[in-house]
């Protein structure tokens, strides 16, 4: 047999614009452009290494494991968060720090806020039952639902892309925290009140389900479906937040009537006040809602779906 490999010839140069910003000196960020020789299979970090080692420019960046384990080299490339050590270098690229975190210098961002939030959601398993000894009687099936969550390297690419986390005063902990919290919350050995942590501290119901986090996740974790929705499932019944109340109202109406009316959900979830009245009036004036649609019964629904609801209530 003859060994095969991807062609290792590659020519030309890579043009890279790096955002430079030293908060101790600079008033505003600037972009500096460099050209480095293109080499076969180059990753983004190879280009940064070239700028630092060969051109000997003191750009600030992180290089730790360079093998998709430490999750500290995430940067934005042409606007999208990428893992510098994992993703291919582009012939023409603009490299910036990831969003929604303070910049230390150039591409280096602070992880302190993330770690503080992680500490707040009780990041270790809480055992109230005795540990039965090694190996404890657990099975692969019990951990199947979280197998992808354990791929998380906490690179914070998802937090960079999250439109809710981007709003500083939103109170939303962000997808990376929810992945960690969900892994614990779904662990059959864990006895902490993860429902309360998810609802009140991490504020999971503020997730808009936009899937931006999944789009940029370098380890391809189905964050919405396998981390966030299971957390909502756990927090829905007891949650006191407006999001949890709304989820409960939606669920009740959907279960009882089959179809759902948004205004009715809002009303049952306790939405009131002048803003809601103004909105209601606005919609009513254009024929978008009517008295009957809000206060009448929407429909009869389906027995099959109702039974599924009942079964789910028994088996959370």
């Amino acid at each position, binding site marked *: 047999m003859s060994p095969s490999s991807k062609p290792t010839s590659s020519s030309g140069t890579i043009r890279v614009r790096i955002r430079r910003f030293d908060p101790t000196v600079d008033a505003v960020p600037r972009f500096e452009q460099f050209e480095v020789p293109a080499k076969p299979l180059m990753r983004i970090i190879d280009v940064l290494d070239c700028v630092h080692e060969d051109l000997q420019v003191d750009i600030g960046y992180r290089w730790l494991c360079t093998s998709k384990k430490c999750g500290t080299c995430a940067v934005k490339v042409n606007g999208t968060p990428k893992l510098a050590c994992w993703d291919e270098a582009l012939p023409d690229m603009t490299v910036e720090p990831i969003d929604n975190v303070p910049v230390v210098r150039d591409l280096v961002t602070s992880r302190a806020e993330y770690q503080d939030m992680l500490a707040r959601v009780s990041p270790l398993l809480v055992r109230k039952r005795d540990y039965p000894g090694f190996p404890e009687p657990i099975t692969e099936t019990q951990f199947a639902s979280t197998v992808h969550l354990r791929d998380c390297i906490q690179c914070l690419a998802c937090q960079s892309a999250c439109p809710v986390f981007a709003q500083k005063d939103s109170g939303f902990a962000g997808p990376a925290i929810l992945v960690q919290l969900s892994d614990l919350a779904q662990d059959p050995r864990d006895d902490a009140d993860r429902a309360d942590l998810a609802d009140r501290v991490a504020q999971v*119901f503020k997730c*808009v389900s*936009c899937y931006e986090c999944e789009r940029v996740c370098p380890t391809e974790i189905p964050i919405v479906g396998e981390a966030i929705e299971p957390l909502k499932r756990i927090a829905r019944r007891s949650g006191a937040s407006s999001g949890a109340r709304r989820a409960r109202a939606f669920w009740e109406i959907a279960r009882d009537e089959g*179809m759902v009316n*948004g205004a009715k959900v809002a009303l049952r979830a306790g939405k009131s006040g002048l803003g809601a009245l103004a909105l209601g009036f*606005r919609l009513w004036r254009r024929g978008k809602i009517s008295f009957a649609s809000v206060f009448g019964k929407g429909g009869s629904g389906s027995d099959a779906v109702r039974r599924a609801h009942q079964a789910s209530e028994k088996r959370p």
Partner: protein
Amino acid sequence: MNRRYAYFPGCSAKGTCQELDVSTAAVANRFGIELSPLENPGCTGAREFRAISELVHLTANGRIIAKAERMGRDLVVVCDTCLLNLVEANAKLKADAEWRRAVNDALSAEGLEFKGTIAVKHFLWVLTDDLGPDVLRKNIVRPLRGLKVAPFYGCHIQRPVAAHGSRAEEKPALDRLCELLGATVVQYEGASRCCGFHVVAAEEKIALNMSGSHLGNAKDGGAHCVVTPCPLCHTVFDAYQPDIERAKNRSLGLPILHVSQMVGLAIGLSAEALALSRHVVECGDMLAHIPQASGAA
């Protein structure tokens, strides 16, 4: 040739966005597309069923698909979120025999069975793919020349990639449709981002911040209107626009069109037929940018 589909309008098109249902029917009618509504279809669950249980999510959506299968037709939807729920459930139930059995056990009482024989499509795809650009082009009687349109895609027609595959690149398709109809596409930051609908009822500020920034960018890009394939995005952008204007402290006055309304305008349907008057944001100024429309309407 008549194209026949099973049709699931969803709660918005039957409730707060009836103009979507009306305009979809009008456009379908013009192209000889037969859309047969399902009887008592229920709800795909928005973002909630999947957060209740996989069983509820798959039963509710499997049931809707099974109803379409009984008609022997592909299923057409007009809402991004319904689309995602149905596409994901369809794929899951086709691939996973165990779930299929569980869902079919539940559905048997209603005489339904999920067999996995049909596709789920957005009405946009029916127009761009099934009907195709040539047929569309032939039917244009009022090219939208002069109209600057900001396409807004909505999340669930593009993401997650696992559900939509190559469809994840929906952005160019809607851009192409606008261009085909003669409109100028406004490129702006936010076109494929999130409108915030799924938290607007509980966390209005978060949602309006997001939608406000997209609408602001579209406006800054010179848009006369926004077009969207999703009634949920429409609701945030249109019904909440006065609130957005207040939150962002700027006037926008951006009419929000459903895809079917935009197509309808280009193929000569009247503002009445497209129920443009049911929008919160008036469409009058926008129509004035379509030269042929101002006289014909």
